């Protein structure tokens, strides 16, 4: 099975992820700080992007506990207000999904995305 989900990132969700994950790097929370280190403004955590991709992969796999491997490269920045479509597509290999995430401008933000899952019940 394949699965897809579109998410519009909000600063509140990024802040909730920062608190829940313990990753409170100010590049995710403080616009002025983010700009001071050469970023366009605050950016979402790569791990938030990967976590949403893994939720979509879990749906395709038949449940989160079936996931055995998730990997990706964080290829583009996600900023508050961006709308990203995450997808997990079956490949020719059993138990292997291709993960993709593309923003509203068509920019690919996750590359080399892969999830593997147990095909046993």
């Amino acid at each position, binding site marked *: 099975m394949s699965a897809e989900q579109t998410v519009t990132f909000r600063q509140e969700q990024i802040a909730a992820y920062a608190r*829940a994950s313990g990753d409170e790097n100010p590049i995710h929370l403080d616009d002025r700080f983010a700009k001071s*280190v050469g970023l366009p403004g605050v950016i979402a955590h790569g*791990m938030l992007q990967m*976590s949403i991709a893994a939720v979509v992969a879990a749906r395709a796999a038949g449940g989160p506990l079936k996931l055995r*491997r*998730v*990997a990706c490269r964080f290829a583009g920045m996600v900023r508050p207000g961006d709308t990203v479509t995450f997808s997990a597509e079956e490949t020719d290999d059993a138990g292997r999904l291709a993960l993709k995430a593309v923003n509203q401008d068509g920019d690919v933000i996750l590359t080399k995305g892969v999830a593997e899952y147990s095909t046993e019940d």
Partner: protein
Amino acid sequence: MGIEGKQYDPVTVDIDSEHVAAFAWAIGADPAEGVPPTYAAVYCLGATAPQLFGDSDAAVDFGRLLHAEQEFTWERHPEVGEKVTSQATVTSDQNRRGLRFVTLEADSKSEAGEQLCHSRALFVIRSA
């Protein structure tokens, strides 16, 4: 080069239901389906990466650090109530074209010593 090969002390994390629920909520997962797999960002990567970031020998400029790649592999997902112990090693530290690339790998084990998760994170640190 750099701090390649450096291993940090093991860190133990309680898989706490309230914390797991907050994490699940933030990523849009259903906490009723168990501990979200990428909660490994907390018990495996998140438990150990601050040791690297706070290591004066490593001299990582946190504000210029970007998470470039991540891989998790699981033998089993932990359950709420377990204690998970994770230990990290810097497996690569290289400079290329004005950027520093640091790979941090970590293994998480159950109280019985059973392998749960392996994490491989690639961090890129931009020059000031």
